[in-house]
């Protein structure tokens, strides 16, 4: 059974129209016009237990809004959201006890207190049995390397340390689902790497379902086999990352270098895209084409000095995706 399901979910925000200038603000006190903003527009998907799903989209695409509906702090305008078989906003407290949430831009730790005290408050809030709490705390402290700062007040921590503490805090009560809203935002490369490895491990070893929104595609590459892409509140793509590459036909790039310029080369297995004389760039025809096919077709007799094969970069894939959006609308899997 699906652990999360969303069907035709819509969220419309009504925002008062601000009129410019002093006169406008005065008028605004007496009459208000509203603009309707469709943050989530008819999104449907289901997520199975143990999945790790990346929820990707540009700024303002409605990612956080969707997370907030799944965690029960926003009510959908229409459609239904079911989490663990319940409607999250009508069962907020029951739902909250079984999920963990990390907001990259909001802290859940008590600013003035040592990290350990915040953890201890969570023990009370989630009513975690003492033995299990001690177990989880010890395990998370080791895995996230928190021993050196667990007794320091939160305000003295670096962002990377704080984020690790936030993630640990969300996992102390063994939630069935972990929601993360941009967990790697603002972190340096090393901290990002620690967080990613940890999340992948939690998903793999403990079977915790992970839903993660991000801007950083590497997050998705390393943690989430499945990708949901949204823009303008609409679903653009839902499927595996490698499937996205195939759908888009992003092809691998092959660079051949020659000792002397062999002149123009035309191949069936690869298309010449850039010709720099002694260095030529090709795009491989399709996923099945191997480098051997190209070399066989090329034949010997050329003064070949170097070969380099590049996988399509995911950033590039996504950029092409957004650029070709109108064309792809009908081809949604």
């Amino acid at each position: 059974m699906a652990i999360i399901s969303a069907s035709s979910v819509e969220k419309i925000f009504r925002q008062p129209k601000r009129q410019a200038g002093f006169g406008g603000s005065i008028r605004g006190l007496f009459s208000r016009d509203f603009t309707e903003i469709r943050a989530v527009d008819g999104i449907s998907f289901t997520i199975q237990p143990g999945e790790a799903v990346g929820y990707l989209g540009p700024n303002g695409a409605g990612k956080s809004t969707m997370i907030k509906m799944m965690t029960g702090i926003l009510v959908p305008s229409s459609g239904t959201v079911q989490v663990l078989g319940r409607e999250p906003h009508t069962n907020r407290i029951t739902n909250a006890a079984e999920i963990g949430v990390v907001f990259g831009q909001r802290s859940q730790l008590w600013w003035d207190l040592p990290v350990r005290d915040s953890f201890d408050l969570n023990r009370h809030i989630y009513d975690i049995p003492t033995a299990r709490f001690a177990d989880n705390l010890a395990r998370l402290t080791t895995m996230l390397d928190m021993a050196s700062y667990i007794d320091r007040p939160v305000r003295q921590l670096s962002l990377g340390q704080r984020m690790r503490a936030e993630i640990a805090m969300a996992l102390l009560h063994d939630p069935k689902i972990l929601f993360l809203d941009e967990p790697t935002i603002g972190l340096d490369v090393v901290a990002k790497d620690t967080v990613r490895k940890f999340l992948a491990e939690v998903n793999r070893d403990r079977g915790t379902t992970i839903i993660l929104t991000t801007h950083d595609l590497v997050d998705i590459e390393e943690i989430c086999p499945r990708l949901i892409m949204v823009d303008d509140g609409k679903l653009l793509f839902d499927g595996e990352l490698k499937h996205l590459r195939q759908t888009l036909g992003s092809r691998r790039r092959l660079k051949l270098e020659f000792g002397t310029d062999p002149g123009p080369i035309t191949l069936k297995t690869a298309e010449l895209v850039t010709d720099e004389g002694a260095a030529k760039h090709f795009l491989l025809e399709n996923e099945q084409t191997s480098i051997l096919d190209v070399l066989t077709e090329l034949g010997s007799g050329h003064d070949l000095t170097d070969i380099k094969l590049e996988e399509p970069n995911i950033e590039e894939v996504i950029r092409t995706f957004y650029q070709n959006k109108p064309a792809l609308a009908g081809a949604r899997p």
Partner: protein
Amino acid sequence: MRAAAYPAFALTAFQSRLVYRNQVWASAFGDLVSIFARIAIWTAAFAGATQVDGITLPEMVTYALLSGPLLYWEYSRVLYDVGDAVRTGDVAVFLLKPLHYPSYLLSTHFGHFAFECVAIVVPVALIVGFTVGLLPPASLFHGLMFFPYWAVSWLILFTLACLCGLLAFWLLTAFSLEWLLMAIMSLFSGAIIPLWFLPTPLATIFGYLPFAWISYYPAAVYLGKLDPTATWLHLGIGLLWLGLLTAAVLALWGKARTRLVVQGG
């Protein structure tokens, strides 16, 4: 709901205040200056008279201490807490946890209050007691009755501050409300001038509004200005007001949750 979490919040709030020791000194000093200013004003107002309208100067000094720092505590912290949580969207963090936000606020602010009592009010009372002198309760009955009055006073002030903070869900700022509340409360509650010095029609009206249970009635009971029947009667009315205000907070919170707009996310 996890009941054990709420005492833990109170304790955490208490502990977190220990971090800012300078703030404690500043607040204690501020309270001390303000209480001595009020004592000086009342001394000047009495102008050597032993009593005015049946009230003696030592009674007024005791009234000033009770109605001021003890009963009319720093409620703006509640307002700011709720207002900020709404404005910055941090209220989301509380909604993500299996807890009841108004109860969380209640326990946290009780922790703050307990800290202020121990660190500020008690030392100030001791200083005033040893320098100017404070009166004991008028009788054992009045002394004992002060405690339920104190509890009702604390909860009424808390629910009022909460109500205004929660209105920020609709108005998205608690700032202007705080000014309104501050102006109304300082006059209506009797925190500055006891109702017995106000013109009778005003005193009668104010005497039935919930604000009077914040400062005026508890201090008046302590000083024995209400006879036993009136003491019981007014405790009942106070509880009625408290019930109404609590119902209003819970209703507003329920409404706020469904109409919630989490900003800045």
